[in-house]
Protein backbone atom coordinates (compact mmCIF):
# COMPACT_ATOMS: atom_id res chain seq x y z
CA UNK A 1 0.00 0.00 0.00
CA UNK A 2 2.72 2.41 1.01
CA UNK A 3 4.75 1.44 -2.04
CA UNK A 4 1.85 1.97 -4.46
CA UNK A 5 1.24 5.44 -3.02
CA UNK A 6 4.85 6.29 -3.73
CA UNK A 7 4.76 4.88 -7.24
CA UNK A 8 1.59 6.67 -8.33
CA UNK A 9 2.99 10.22 -8.56
CA UNK A 10 6.02 8.91 -10.44
CA UNK A 11 3.79 7.16 -12.93
CA UNK A 12 1.76 10.34 -13.47
CA UNK A 13 4.91 12.41 -13.95
CA UNK A 14 6.20 9.96 -16.56
CA UNK A 15 2.93 10.18 -18.48
CA UNK A 16 3.00 13.98 -18.44
CA UNK A 17 6.55 14.01 -19.78
CA UNK A 18 5.63 11.87 -22.76
CA UNK A 19 2.19 13.15 -23.55
CA UNK A 20 1.71 15.72 -26.24
CA UNK A 21 -1.99 15.41 -26.78
CA UNK A 22 -4.43 16.03 -29.53
CA UNK A 23 -5.98 19.44 -28.68
CA UNK A 24 -3.74 22.47 -29.24
CA UNK A 25 -4.63 25.90 -27.90
CA UNK A 26 -3.63 29.38 -29.06
CA UNK A 27 -1.86 32.01 -27.04
CA UNK A 28 -1.26 35.49 -28.43
CA UNK A 29 -0.20 38.74 -26.76
CA UNK A 30 1.16 42.01 -28.08
CA UNK A 31 2.30 45.38 -26.76
CA UNK A 32 3.43 48.73 -28.18
CA UNK A 33 6.70 50.19 -27.00
CA UNK A 34 7.87 53.80 -27.36
CA UNK A 35 11.26 52.95 -28.83
CA UNK A 36 12.63 52.07 -32.26
CA UNK A 37 12.38 48.44 -33.40
CA UNK A 38 16.18 48.25 -33.33
CA UNK A 39 16.26 49.42 -29.72
CA UNK A 40 13.59 46.88 -28.74
CA UNK A 41 15.36 44.12 -30.67
CA UNK A 42 18.60 44.93 -28.86
CA UNK A 43 16.92 43.83 -25.63
CA UNK A 44 14.50 41.21 -26.94
CA UNK A 45 16.65 39.63 -29.66
CA UNK A 46 19.06 38.15 -27.14
CA UNK A 47 17.42 34.73 -26.67
CA UNK A 48 18.87 34.12 -23.22
CA UNK A 49 18.47 37.80 -22.29
CA UNK A 50 14.85 37.12 -21.25
CA UNK A 51 16.09 36.94 -17.67
CA UNK A 52 16.81 40.67 -17.82
CA UNK A 53 13.22 41.67 -18.51
CA UNK A 54 10.72 38.86 -17.76
CA UNK A 55 9.42 39.23 -14.19
CA UNK A 56 8.73 35.48 -13.82
CA UNK A 57 12.27 34.40 -14.73
CA UNK A 58 14.90 34.25 -12.03
CA UNK A 59 17.80 33.10 -14.18
CA UNK A 60 18.38 32.44 -17.88
CA UNK A 61 21.44 30.93 -19.50
CA UNK A 62 21.93 30.26 -23.20
CA UNK A 63 24.16 28.93 -25.93
CA UNK A 64 23.63 31.82 -28.35
CA UNK A 65 20.99 33.58 -30.43
CA UNK A 66 21.13 31.48 -33.63
CA UNK A 67 19.29 28.59 -35.28
CA UNK A 68 19.50 25.68 -32.86
CA UNK A 69 20.52 27.91 -29.94
CA UNK A 70 19.16 26.93 -26.53
CA UNK A 71 18.33 28.60 -23.23
CA UNK A 72 17.69 27.20 -19.78
CA UNK A 73 15.15 29.16 -17.77
CA UNK A 74 14.86 29.00 -14.02
CA UNK A 75 11.54 30.45 -12.95
CA UNK A 76 11.23 32.37 -9.70
CA UNK A 77 8.84 29.64 -8.52
CA UNK A 78 11.60 27.05 -8.94
CA UNK A 79 10.41 25.52 -12.24
CA UNK A 80 12.97 24.92 -14.98
CA UNK A 81 12.55 24.81 -18.76
CA UNK A 82 14.93 24.13 -21.61
CA UNK A 83 13.99 25.91 -24.86
CA UNK A 84 15.56 25.80 -28.32
CA UNK A 85 15.47 28.12 -31.33
CA UNK A 86 14.04 26.74 -34.56
CA UNK A 87 14.62 29.86 -36.60
CA UNK A 88 16.45 33.03 -35.63
CA UNK A 89 16.03 35.86 -38.15
CA UNK A 90 17.59 39.11 -36.90
CA UNK A 91 16.95 40.79 -40.28
CA UNK A 92 13.21 40.33 -39.70
CA UNK A 93 13.55 40.90 -35.93
CA UNK A 94 11.82 37.58 -35.27
CA UNK A 95 12.56 34.18 -33.84
CA UNK A 96 10.67 30.90 -33.32
CA UNK A 97 11.41 28.43 -30.56
CA UNK A 98 9.97 25.42 -28.77
CA UNK A 99 10.23 24.02 -25.28
CA UNK A 100 11.85 20.69 -24.48
CA UNK A 101 10.59 18.45 -21.69
CA UNK A 102 7.59 19.86 -19.81
CA UNK A 103 7.90 21.20 -16.28
CA UNK A 104 4.46 21.74 -14.79
CA UNK A 105 5.84 23.98 -12.05
CA UNK A 106 7.25 26.38 -14.63
CA UNK A 107 4.18 26.34 -16.92
CA UNK A 108 1.16 23.98 -16.73
CA UNK A 109 1.51 22.79 -20.33
CA UNK A 110 2.83 19.55 -21.84
CA UNK A 111 4.32 21.26 -24.87
CA UNK A 112 4.52 24.69 -26.46
CA UNK A 113 6.11 26.51 -29.36
CA UNK A 114 6.11 30.24 -30.03
CA UNK A 115 7.19 33.06 -32.30
CA UNK A 116 8.42 36.44 -31.06
CA UNK A 117 8.40 39.39 -33.49
CA UNK A 118 9.33 43.08 -33.22
CA UNK A 119 7.96 45.34 -35.97
CA UNK A 120 7.69 49.11 -36.54
CA UNK A 121 4.43 50.79 -35.53
CA UNK A 122 4.03 54.56 -35.80
CA UNK A 123 7.02 56.21 -34.11
CA UNK A 124 7.67 53.14 -32.02
CA UNK A 125 7.39 49.38 -32.10
CA UNK A 126 4.92 46.59 -31.76
CA UNK A 127 5.97 43.33 -30.16
CA UNK A 128 3.97 40.16 -30.84
CA UNK A 129 4.42 36.93 -28.91
CA UNK A 130 2.21 34.11 -30.12
CA UNK A 131 2.22 30.37 -29.85
CA UNK A 132 0.60 26.97 -29.64
CA UNK A 133 0.43 24.79 -26.55
CA UNK A 134 -1.15 21.60 -25.21
CA UNK A 135 -2.69 21.40 -21.75
CA UNK A 136 -0.66 19.94 -18.89
CA UNK A 137 -2.67 16.71 -18.78
CA UNK A 138 -3.62 15.67 -22.29
CA UNK A 139 -5.94 12.83 -21.23
CA UNK A 140 -9.70 13.02 -21.51
CA UNK A 141 -10.35 14.07 -17.91
CA UNK A 142 -7.61 16.54 -16.91
CA UNK A 143 -7.60 17.93 -13.36
CA UNK A 144 -8.59 21.60 -13.16
CA UNK A 145 -5.02 22.86 -12.73
CA UNK A 146 -3.86 21.05 -15.91
CA UNK A 147 -6.89 21.80 -18.14
CA UNK A 148 -7.10 23.83 -21.36
CA UNK A 149 -8.44 26.77 -19.32
CA UNK A 150 -5.58 26.60 -16.80
CA UNK A 151 -3.08 26.44 -19.66
CA UNK A 152 -4.66 29.43 -21.43
CA UNK A 153 -4.65 31.53 -18.27
CA UNK A 154 -1.04 30.66 -17.45
CA UNK A 155 0.34 31.10 -20.97
CA UNK A 156 -1.47 34.38 -21.59
CA UNK A 157 -0.26 35.71 -18.24
CA UNK A 158 3.31 34.52 -18.96
CA UNK A 159 3.42 36.27 -22.35
CA UNK A 160 1.59 39.40 -21.21
CA UNK A 161 3.64 39.92 -18.02
CA UNK A 162 6.79 39.32 -20.06
CA UNK A 163 5.86 41.95 -22.62
CA UNK A 164 5.05 44.45 -19.85
CA UNK A 165 8.47 43.73 -18.36
CA UNK A 166 10.15 44.23 -21.74
CA UNK A 167 8.31 47.54 -22.24
CA UNK A 168 9.38 48.77 -18.78
CA UNK A 169 12.98 47.70 -19.40
CA UNK A 170 13.21 49.37 -22.83
CA UNK A 171 11.21 52.54 -22.07
CA UNK A 172 12.68 52.94 -18.60
CA UNK A 173 16.14 52.17 -19.89
CA UNK A 174 16.67 49.73 -17.07
CA UNK A 175 16.24 46.08 -16.35
CA UNK A 176 13.42 44.81 -14.14
Amino acid at each position, binding site marked *: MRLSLLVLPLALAATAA*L*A*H*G*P*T*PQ*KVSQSITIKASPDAVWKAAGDFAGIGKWHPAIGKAEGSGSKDGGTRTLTFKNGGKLEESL*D*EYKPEGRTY*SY*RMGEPNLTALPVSSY*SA*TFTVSPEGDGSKVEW*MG*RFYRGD*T*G*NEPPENLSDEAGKAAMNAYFSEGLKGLKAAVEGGKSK
Partner: protein
Amino acid sequence: MIRPALVALFLAPALAGLPVRAATVYVASQQGAQVTRVEAGAVVGHATVAEAPATVAAGGGSVFLSHPDGHAITVTDAATGVVLRRLPYRGQAFGLAASADGRTLFVADWSGHRVDRLSAADGTVEASAETGRDPAHITLDRAGRLYVADRESHQISVFETERMTRLATISVGTAPFALALSPDERRLYVGNVRSNDLTVIDTQALKPLTTVPVGPMPYGVSVSPDGARVLVTNQQAGTVTVLDAGTLAIAATVGVGRYPEGIVIEDGRAYVANWFSDSVSVLDLATLKEVARLPVAEGPRSLAVAAAAKEILR
Protein backbone atom coordinates in the same frame (compact mmCIF):
# COMPACT_ATOMS: atom_id res chain seq x y z
CA MET B 1 -6.27 -1.57 -70.04
CA ILE B 2 -9.19 0.80 -70.08
CA ARG B 3 -12.32 -0.62 -71.58
CA PRO B 4 -14.28 1.54 -74.05
CA ALA B 5 -17.39 1.27 -71.89
CA LEU B 6 -15.53 2.86 -68.97
CA VAL B 7 -14.16 5.62 -71.16
CA ALA B 8 -17.70 6.31 -72.33
CA LEU B 9 -18.83 6.48 -68.71
CA PHE B 10 -16.22 9.15 -67.93
CA LEU B 11 -16.70 11.14 -71.09
CA ALA B 12 -20.46 10.97 -71.27
CA PRO B 13 -21.29 13.86 -68.93
CA ALA B 14 -18.71 16.13 -70.57
CA LEU B 15 -19.85 15.24 -74.07
CA ALA B 16 -23.46 15.78 -73.15
CA GLY B 17 -22.58 19.22 -71.80
CA LEU B 18 -23.50 18.25 -68.24
CA PRO B 19 -21.43 19.75 -65.42
CA VAL B 20 -18.90 17.27 -64.06
CA ARG B 21 -18.83 17.44 -60.28
CA ALA B 22 -15.43 18.40 -58.92
CA ALA B 23 -14.02 16.62 -55.91
CA THR B 24 -14.64 18.45 -52.65
CA VAL B 25 -12.01 19.36 -50.09
CA TYR B 26 -13.24 19.22 -46.50
CA VAL B 27 -11.55 21.36 -43.83
CA ALA B 28 -12.11 20.68 -40.12
CA SER B 29 -11.77 23.68 -37.76
CA GLN B 30 -11.16 22.46 -34.22
CA GLN B 31 -11.90 25.56 -32.11
CA GLY B 32 -14.61 26.79 -34.48
CA ALA B 33 -16.38 23.38 -34.57
CA GLN B 34 -17.05 23.74 -38.29
CA VAL B 35 -16.45 21.87 -41.48
CA THR B 36 -15.82 23.99 -44.56
CA ARG B 37 -16.30 22.63 -48.08
CA VAL B 38 -13.96 23.90 -50.79
CA GLU B 39 -14.21 23.22 -54.53
CA ALA B 40 -11.86 24.43 -57.27
CA GLY B 41 -10.09 26.82 -54.92
CA ALA B 42 -13.19 28.48 -53.45
CA VAL B 43 -15.36 27.97 -50.37
CA VAL B 44 -18.75 26.50 -51.33
CA GLY B 45 -20.28 25.94 -47.90
CA HIS B 46 -19.83 25.08 -44.27
CA ALA B 47 -21.59 23.16 -41.52
CA THR B 48 -21.44 23.39 -37.74
CA VAL B 49 -20.52 20.11 -36.05
CA ALA B 50 -19.98 18.90 -32.48
CA GLU B 51 -17.23 20.51 -30.41
CA ALA B 52 -13.55 20.32 -31.33
CA PRO B 53 -13.19 18.10 -34.42
CA ALA B 54 -9.50 17.20 -34.92
CA THR B 55 -9.17 14.96 -37.96
CA VAL B 56 -11.32 14.62 -41.07
CA ALA B 57 -11.33 11.59 -43.41
CA ALA B 58 -13.44 10.67 -46.45
CA GLY B 59 -14.67 7.35 -47.77
CA GLY B 60 -17.54 6.31 -50.01
CA GLY B 61 -20.13 9.06 -49.81
CA SER B 62 -19.28 9.96 -46.23
CA VAL B 63 -16.97 12.31 -44.41
CA PHE B 64 -15.86 11.44 -40.85
CA LEU B 65 -14.59 13.67 -38.03
CA SER B 66 -12.83 12.64 -34.82
CA HIS B 67 -13.55 14.44 -31.52
CA PRO B 68 -10.66 13.57 -29.15
CA ASP B 69 -12.21 15.32 -26.16
CA GLY B 70 -15.80 14.37 -27.02
CA HIS B 71 -15.70 10.55 -27.08
CA ALA B 72 -17.29 10.65 -30.52
CA ILE B 73 -17.00 10.52 -34.29
CA THR B 74 -19.27 12.58 -36.53
CA VAL B 75 -20.48 11.21 -39.87
CA THR B 76 -21.52 13.71 -42.55
CA ASP B 77 -22.79 13.37 -46.09
CA ALA B 78 -19.94 14.07 -48.54
CA ALA B 79 -22.14 15.66 -51.18
CA THR B 80 -23.94 18.15 -48.93
CA GLY B 81 -21.88 18.35 -45.73
CA VAL B 82 -25.03 17.62 -43.70
CA VAL B 83 -24.38 15.81 -40.39
CA LEU B 84 -25.88 12.32 -40.60
CA ARG B 85 -25.08 10.77 -37.22
CA ARG B 86 -22.79 10.64 -34.19
CA LEU B 87 -20.87 7.48 -33.35
CA PRO B 88 -19.96 7.09 -29.68
CA TYR B 89 -16.30 6.21 -29.11
CA ARG B 90 -14.88 5.07 -25.76
CA GLY B 91 -11.34 6.39 -26.26
CA GLN B 92 -9.57 9.59 -27.36
CA ALA B 93 -10.19 9.47 -31.12
CA PHE B 94 -7.56 11.27 -33.16
CA GLY B 95 -6.31 9.74 -36.44
CA LEU B 96 -8.97 8.48 -38.85
CA ALA B 97 -9.07 6.45 -42.07
CA ALA B 98 -12.10 5.16 -43.96
CA SER B 99 -12.44 2.28 -46.40
CA ALA B 100 -13.14 3.21 -50.03
CA ASP B 101 -16.80 2.19 -49.66
CA GLY B 102 -17.18 4.23 -46.47
CA ARG B 103 -18.49 1.26 -44.47
CA THR B 104 -15.45 0.69 -42.29
CA LEU B 105 -13.65 3.24 -40.19
CA PHE B 106 -10.24 3.03 -38.49
CA VAL B 107 -9.67 5.16 -35.40
CA ALA B 108 -6.42 5.83 -33.52
CA ASP B 109 -7.03 6.15 -29.77
CA TRP B 110 -4.34 8.65 -28.72
CA SER B 111 -4.19 7.99 -24.99
CA GLY B 112 -5.40 4.37 -25.31
CA HIS B 113 -2.40 3.49 -27.50
CA ARG B 114 -4.52 1.38 -29.85
CA VAL B 115 -6.29 1.42 -33.16
CA ASP B 116 -9.87 0.22 -33.63
CA ARG B 117 -11.81 -0.98 -36.65
CA LEU B 118 -15.38 0.31 -36.47
CA SER B 119 -18.59 -0.18 -38.36
CA ALA B 120 -19.30 3.24 -39.87
CA ALA B 121 -23.01 2.49 -39.58
CA ASP B 122 -23.22 2.44 -35.78
CA GLY B 123 -19.70 2.68 -34.35
CA THR B 124 -19.49 -0.95 -33.23
CA VAL B 125 -15.87 -1.89 -32.59
CA GLU B 126 -15.23 -4.94 -34.79
CA ALA B 127 -11.55 -5.43 -34.06
CA SER B 128 -8.79 -3.70 -32.18
CA ALA B 129 -5.00 -3.75 -31.88
CA GLU B 130 -2.30 -2.25 -29.71
CA THR B 131 -0.08 0.37 -31.32
CA GLY B 132 2.99 2.17 -29.98
CA ARG B 133 2.60 5.17 -27.69
CA ASP B 134 0.33 8.07 -28.71
CA PRO B 135 -0.80 6.97 -32.18
CA ALA B 136 -1.38 10.11 -34.28
CA HIS B 137 -2.36 10.00 -37.96
CA ILE B 138 -3.12 6.79 -39.85
CA THR B 139 -3.50 5.87 -43.50
CA LEU B 140 -5.06 2.91 -45.31
CA ASP B 141 -3.80 1.52 -48.61
CA ARG B 142 -5.90 -0.11 -51.34
CA ALA B 143 -4.80 -3.60 -50.27
CA GLY B 144 -6.18 -3.05 -46.78
CA ARG B 145 -2.97 -2.35 -44.93
CA LEU B 146 -3.06 0.31 -42.25
CA TYR B 147 -0.07 2.50 -41.36
CA VAL B 148 -0.05 4.20 -37.94
CA ALA B 149 2.33 6.99 -36.84
CA ASP B 150 3.21 6.05 -33.24
CA ARG B 151 4.29 9.51 -32.18
CA GLU B 152 5.97 8.82 -28.86
CA SER B 153 7.42 5.47 -29.94
CA HIS B 154 9.11 7.06 -32.96
CA GLN B 155 7.92 4.29 -35.26
CA ILE B 156 5.30 3.34 -37.82
CA SER B 157 3.13 0.32 -37.02
CA VAL B 158 1.77 -1.59 -40.00
CA PHE B 159 -1.38 -3.73 -39.68
CA GLU B 160 -3.36 -6.00 -41.95
CA THR B 161 -6.90 -4.92 -41.28
CA GLU B 162 -8.77 -8.21 -41.80
CA ARG B 163 -7.70 -9.51 -38.38
CA MET B 164 -5.88 -6.39 -37.18
CA THR B 165 -2.55 -8.12 -36.71
CA ARG B 166 0.68 -6.15 -36.77
CA LEU B 167 2.91 -6.93 -39.76
CA ALA B 168 5.82 -4.68 -38.85
CA THR B 169 7.09 -1.77 -36.83
CA ILE B 170 9.43 0.57 -38.66
CA SER B 171 11.72 3.01 -36.84
CA VAL B 172 11.53 6.57 -38.14
CA GLY B 173 12.62 10.02 -36.87
CA THR B 174 11.55 11.64 -33.60
CA ALA B 175 7.80 12.15 -33.06
CA PRO B 176 6.22 11.01 -36.35
CA PHE B 177 2.80 12.64 -36.76
CA ALA B 178 1.53 12.79 -40.37
CA LEU B 179 1.99 10.33 -43.20
CA ALA B 180 1.11 9.98 -46.88
CA LEU B 181 1.35 7.22 -49.47
CA SER B 182 2.61 7.77 -53.01
CA PRO B 183 -0.09 7.21 -55.67
CA ASP B 184 1.41 3.78 -56.54
CA GLU B 185 1.54 3.03 -52.78
CA ARG B 186 5.16 1.84 -52.99
CA ARG B 187 6.40 4.68 -50.79
CA LEU B 188 5.18 5.97 -47.45
CA TYR B 189 6.33 9.44 -46.42
CA VAL B 190 6.42 10.24 -42.70
CA GLY B 191 6.86 13.71 -41.16
CA ASN B 192 8.86 13.67 -37.90
CA VAL B 193 7.84 16.69 -35.80
CA ARG B 194 10.73 16.84 -33.35
CA SER B 195 13.61 15.82 -35.64
CA ASN B 196 12.39 18.17 -38.42
CA ASP B 197 12.71 15.57 -41.15
CA LEU B 198 10.87 13.19 -43.47
CA THR B 199 11.36 9.42 -43.48
CA VAL B 200 10.75 7.56 -46.74
CA ILE B 201 9.58 3.94 -46.33
CA ASP B 202 9.62 1.16 -48.93
CA THR B 203 6.16 -0.38 -48.43
CA GLN B 204 7.08 -3.68 -50.11
CA ALA B 205 10.12 -4.33 -47.94
CA LEU B 206 8.51 -2.46 -44.98
CA LYS B 207 11.87 -0.82 -44.33
CA PRO B 208 12.99 2.80 -44.15
CA LEU B 209 14.91 3.91 -47.25
CA THR B 210 16.18 7.27 -46.08
CA THR B 211 15.41 10.29 -43.92
CA VAL B 212 15.84 13.81 -45.31
CA PRO B 213 15.62 17.23 -43.63
CA VAL B 214 12.59 19.47 -44.17
CA GLY B 215 11.62 22.56 -42.13
CA PRO B 216 10.89 22.97 -38.41
CA MET B 217 7.97 20.91 -37.06
CA PRO B 218 6.68 19.03 -40.12
CA TYR B 219 2.99 18.44 -39.31
CA GLY B 220 1.44 17.56 -42.68
CA VAL B 221 2.47 15.53 -45.75
CA SER B 222 0.90 15.08 -49.18
CA VAL B 223 2.06 13.61 -52.49
CA SER B 224 1.10 14.96 -55.93
CA PRO B 225 -1.11 12.64 -58.05
CA ASP B 226 1.78 11.96 -60.47
CA GLY B 227 3.99 10.98 -57.54
CA ALA B 228 6.65 13.51 -58.57
CA ARG B 229 6.44 15.85 -55.60
CA VAL B 230 6.09 15.55 -51.86
CA LEU B 231 4.72 18.57 -49.98
CA VAL B 232 5.37 19.02 -46.27
CA THR B 233 4.00 21.75 -43.98
CA ASN B 234 6.50 23.25 -41.55
CA GLN B 235 4.38 24.37 -38.65
CA GLN B 236 7.02 26.39 -36.84
CA ALA B 237 8.16 28.28 -39.98
CA GLY B 238 4.83 28.97 -41.67
CA THR B 239 6.05 27.35 -44.87
CA VAL B 240 5.52 24.37 -47.16
CA THR B 241 8.58 22.45 -48.35
CA VAL B 242 8.23 20.99 -51.85
CA LEU B 243 10.50 17.99 -52.42
CA ASP B 244 11.32 16.29 -55.69
CA ALA B 245 10.21 12.70 -55.00
CA GLY B 246 12.95 11.22 -57.16
CA THR B 247 15.96 13.02 -55.70
CA LEU B 248 14.34 14.16 -52.40
CA ALA B 249 15.98 17.55 -53.03
CA ILE B 250 14.05 20.65 -51.97
CA ALA B 251 12.48 22.17 -55.10
CA ALA B 252 10.83 25.13 -53.35
CA THR B 253 9.80 26.57 -50.00
CA VAL B 254 6.48 28.37 -50.13
CA GLY B 255 5.25 30.80 -47.47
CA VAL B 256 1.74 30.16 -46.13
CA GLY B 257 -0.16 31.24 -42.99
CA ARG B 258 0.84 30.76 -39.36
CA TYR B 259 1.13 27.27 -37.90
CA PRO B 260 0.24 25.30 -41.04
CA GLU B 261 -0.80 21.72 -40.31
CA GLY B 262 -2.83 19.50 -42.69
CA ILE B 263 -2.25 19.51 -46.46
CA VAL B 264 -4.05 17.81 -49.37
CA ILE B 265 -3.65 17.99 -53.13
CA GLU B 266 -6.58 18.06 -55.54
CA ASP B 267 -6.78 18.98 -59.21
CA GLY B 268 -3.49 20.87 -59.51
CA ARG B 269 -3.82 22.71 -56.22
CA ALA B 270 -2.51 22.10 -52.73
CA TYR B 271 -4.68 23.16 -49.81
CA VAL B 272 -3.01 23.96 -46.48
CA ALA B 273 -4.81 24.40 -43.14
CA ASN B 274 -3.27 27.42 -41.37
CA TRP B 275 -4.17 26.60 -37.77
CA PHE B 276 -3.26 29.93 -36.18
CA SER B 277 -4.36 32.16 -39.07
CA ASP B 278 -7.82 30.56 -39.40
CA SER B 279 -7.39 30.19 -43.14
CA VAL B 280 -6.63 27.74 -45.92
CA SER B 281 -3.78 28.55 -48.31
CA VAL B 282 -4.33 27.48 -51.91
CA LEU B 283 -1.07 26.73 -53.77
CA ASP B 284 -0.82 26.34 -57.53
CA LEU B 285 1.26 23.19 -58.08
CA ALA B 286 2.47 24.33 -61.51
CA THR B 287 3.97 27.61 -60.29
CA LEU B 288 4.47 26.61 -56.63
CA LYS B 289 2.94 29.92 -55.52
CA GLU B 290 0.19 30.72 -53.07
CA VAL B 291 -2.75 31.89 -55.20
CA ALA B 292 -5.46 32.38 -52.56
CA ARG B 293 -6.04 32.37 -48.84
CA LEU B 294 -9.55 31.33 -47.82
CA PRO B 295 -10.92 32.36 -44.41
CA VAL B 296 -12.38 29.47 -42.40
CA ALA B 297 -13.63 28.96 -38.82
CA GLU B 298 -11.08 29.08 -35.98
CA GLY B 299 -8.35 26.47 -35.74
CA PRO B 300 -8.29 24.51 -39.04
CA ARG B 301 -6.01 21.47 -38.69
CA SER B 302 -7.06 18.69 -41.01
CA LEU B 303 -8.31 18.33 -44.59
CA ALA B 304 -9.65 15.47 -46.69
CA VAL B 305 -10.61 15.07 -50.32
CA ALA B 306 -14.00 13.47 -50.95
CA ALA B 307 -13.94 11.95 -54.42
CA ALA B 308 -16.31 13.33 -57.05
CA ALA B 309 -19.61 11.54 -57.53
CA LYS B 310 -18.36 9.79 -60.70
CA GLU B 311 -15.45 8.29 -58.80
CA ILE B 312 -17.69 7.08 -56.01
CA LEU B 313 -19.83 5.27 -58.61
CA ARG B 314 -16.82 3.71 -60.25
